Structures are given as C-alpha cells and as structure tokens.
C-alpha cells in the first residue's frame, strides 16, 4: 500500500508543484534575460528587482474574466487547454532527477519512447484550440502548428534512434548509467544528434526562431487569440513545462543527467560532494538560459524555410546519422 500508492502519489504532488512554481519564475527569468539582452531592466516594480512579479502574474491571470466566444465549439474550446497542459506534465513521470529510486516517479523500460509518445499528444491542444475558436487567425495558426509539430517530431524521433543505438537501452535511468560505464557524455559521441534534438526541441515548443504558430505580426497572436484569463495561462504553462521537460531530457540524454563532469576521473571525486540532482538542475538551467538567449537573438523563419529545414535538412541528416552510428557500432 505504502510503496505502490502513497509514495508515488507524494512524489507526483511534489513534482507537479515544483514544475508549476518553476514555470512562474521562468516567465520572470525570461523577461529579465531578454531585457538585459536589449539593454533594459525588465520588471523592477514588484518586490526587490521585480522578483515578486512571478507571484503577481498568476494571480492576475486567475482573476481576469474568462471569455468564451459565442460561436466557439464549447466542449473543445474548454478541452483544448487541458489537452495541451496534461501531456507536458505527464512527460515528467519518466524524467529521473537522480540515480536513486527517490528521484523519479517511474523508470519504465520504454521510458524514452514514452516521453516521445506523450509529447506527441500535446499537438491536439493546439490544433483543437485553433479550430474550436471558430476564428480565422487561430485556425491558420493551428494548421501551421500541426504541420510544424509533425515534421519536427519525425526528425527528433529519428535522431533519437541513433542515441538509442549508442546507449543500447530505452530506459532513461539506463541511458545515464550507460554514459557512466562508457565514461563519456553522449553529447560528445553524438554531437550531430545533440544539435538536431536541440533544433527539434525549439520547433516542438514553438519557440523562436520556430514560433510561427504564435507569430503575432501575422496572426494577431496565434492559436490562443480567442483565449483569456486562466485558460490562456494554461497554454503558457504547457509551453514552459514543455521547455523544462525538453531541457531536462536533453541534459539527461546528452550531458550525463545527474552525473558530475568527468564521472570516470578519480581525481575529481570531490565533485561528488555536490548531490546529483544539483548537477542535473544546473544543466537544465543552462539549457533554459540557451532557449531564452536564442529568443533574444534570432529572427523568425519564414514558413517555407521552416518546412525546408525540417524535411530536406533535419530528416536526411538524422537518417545518415543512424546509418553512420550503426556502421560504427558494428565495427567497434
């Protein structure tokens, strides 16, 4: 009873609260990082250096009026934000924050595939939000989004095949342990795969430079134009939760998860004094910063460029990477 129900439930409660709190502070971090990149100060009014902005923003969103357009499809209009948030949160179930059983909800033997399949469900939220709004621009945005997400999902899945070939397991804990036994982070074994997953991750979370589904200059705000109040914020929760989970998975697959740098070098054993989850958190934090840095730096792609990158560049490179990995795996 205790092991099968209560402890997993407690872990889930802690994990969900941690995600939601970190999302609110991530919004603040993003505003600050972009402000510094543009020589501004960012939010400064609420609390010291605007730190309390992260608490005030959600309260404002909860208190705002929740409007449903008259001609919207009522059922799907309320279902869409839920469908987009729930997969983003469920994906955290297989993310191990440490090697001990205490630090993950589940270590299933198909962990990586579970992550991919759960995140592929998230696209329904975006498509249905655009369609159910019964409005021109959201519909256009959701058509763009679905085409984009499917294309880049194929590229990311194919890229991860070569990583699975290297690691020899689909379990997330197993992949980190394989990096420990091989004595190298897979980011250095599979640099091409790392770059492809990073690009695909940007596209799957609708971030700059792939934020065409929410291109406000063309679409007045994207698929969530008709949403307001808490439902609108659910889409943002989903987007930021997706960014966190993709950063976490990238850190686990390519940068050794909770392992310290140079895990096989005895001379650096004093680094083990810092617990594994802090190593993983700092790696995740670096990726989050990278996402924001890219947003502050790069312009948006045109839609035909986006499709060309996905189908004619990423997928062929991913296929070639699988072939090369297979040959090397057989020869070595």
């Amino acid at each position, binding site marked *: 009873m205790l092991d099968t129900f209560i402890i997993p439930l407690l872990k889930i409660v802690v994990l969900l609260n941690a995600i939601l709190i970190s999302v609110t502070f991530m919004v603040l971090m993003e505003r600050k990082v972009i402000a510094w990149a543009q020589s501004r100060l960012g939010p400064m009014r609420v609390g010291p250096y605007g730190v309390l902005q992260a608490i005030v923003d959600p309260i404002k969103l909860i208190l705002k009026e929740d409007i449903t357009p008259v001609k919207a499809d009522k059922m799907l209009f309320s279902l869409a934000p839920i469908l987009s948030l729930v997969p983003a949160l469920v994906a955290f179930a297989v993310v191990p924050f440490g090697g001990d059983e205490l630090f993950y909800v589940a270590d299933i033997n*198909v962990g990586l595939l579970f992550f991919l*399949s759960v995140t*592929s469900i998230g696209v*329904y939220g975006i498509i*249905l939000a655009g369609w159910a709004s019964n409005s021109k621009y959201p519909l256009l945005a959701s058509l763009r989004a679905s*085409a984009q997400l499917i294309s880049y999902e194929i590229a990311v899945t194919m890229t991860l095949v070569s990583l699975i070939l290297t690691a020899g397991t689909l379990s997330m804990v197993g992949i980190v342990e394989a990096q420990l036994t091989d004595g190298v982070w897979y980011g250095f074994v599979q640099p091409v795969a790392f770059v492809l997953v990073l690009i695909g991750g940007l596209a799957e979370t609708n971030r700059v430079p792939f934020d065409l589904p929410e291109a406000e200059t063309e679409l007045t705000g994207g698929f969530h134009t008709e949403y307001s109040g808490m439902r609108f914020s659910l889409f943002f929760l989903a987007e930021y939760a997706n960014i966190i989970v993709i950063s976490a998975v990238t850190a686990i697959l390519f940068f050794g998860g909770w392992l310290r740098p140079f895990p096989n070098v005895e001379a650096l054993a004093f680094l083990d004094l810092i617990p594994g989850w802090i190593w993983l958190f700092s790696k995740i934090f670096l990726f989050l910063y990278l996402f924001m840095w890219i947003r502050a730096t790069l312009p948006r792609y045109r839609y035909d460029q986006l499709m060309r990158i996905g189908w004619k560049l990423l997928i062929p490179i991913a296929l070639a990477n699988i072939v090369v990995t297979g040959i090397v795996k057989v020869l070595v």
Partner: protein
Amino acid sequence: MAEAIAFYTLSILILGLGVAVITTPRTVHSVVFLVLNFLCVAVLYVVLRAEFLAVIQILVYAGGIVVLYLFVVMLVNLKRQPEEHQDPRRLAKIGLGLSGAMLVELAAIVVYSYSREPSSVTAPSPAFPVQGNVEQLGWLLYTDYLIPFEVASVLLLVAMVGAIILARREL
C-alpha cells in the same frame, strides 16, 4: 482481480468511445473520441504487459495518424452532415448485413479457440537470449519473423511512393 477490474473498465470505455465516434454528428468531435479510444487501447496493452506496443500505439496512431485525420477534417470543414442526403433505410440494410457477418466471424473465432486443446492454445514461449520487452520483440522480428517484417516495410515504402505520385502530378 485487479487486472479483471482494469480490463472490464477499459473495455466499457473503449466500446463506449467507439460508439461515440460513429454517433457524434460533428466530424471533429468524433476524431477526438477516436484519439481517446486509442489512448484507452494503449492502457489495455499496458495491462497486458505489452509496454512497447502501448507506447507505439500512442506514438503512431494517436500522435501521428489521427493528427493527419484531424488536419484533413479541419481543411475540408464539412458543413452538411453526410447522412442528410442518403436514404437511412438503405444504409441500415447494409449495416445490418455487415455487422451480422462480423458477429458470425467473432463467434467462429471464439468457438474455434475453445474447441482446441488448451495446451495448443498457448504456444510455448521460445527461449530468448535477451531480457526485456523491447529486446525480445526486436529479437523475434529480426530472427523468426524477418521475412514478414521486410515485406511489411516494402509494402509501406510502396504505399509512400504511391501517395507521392498521387500528390504530385509532375515529378
């Protein structure tokens, strides 16, 4: 006991969602019910200890194919119900015939499987040199079932080439 409860709950859900798919008047709604149906089938696979199949069911069907269905349905944007301009009685006759054939088929399967010896119903599990669900599946696909596996992949390739030719008239 727990497995039986899970099985019957899931069966009721799957059948109910299946009925909802074909009775809902709006096409987009029935696609959403289809997705939920596929998710329930995936959970049923997990109950049967086929984790790989469950995950692939979500990844391929719920996450891939049905998204394309939804894409098409949204683009076509069916204003009129297709049933309005057809004679419902004619459809009822065809439906009755088809479901009767299906019923006979299912009954035949059940009678046939129960009439055989119980030992031959469950095939002896082959000895695997590898452990784990995915590993054993891969082992079987690349040893005993190599030819069907390759034939299936060629079939998919042919279908893909055909779709590309249909979509682009000039190559």
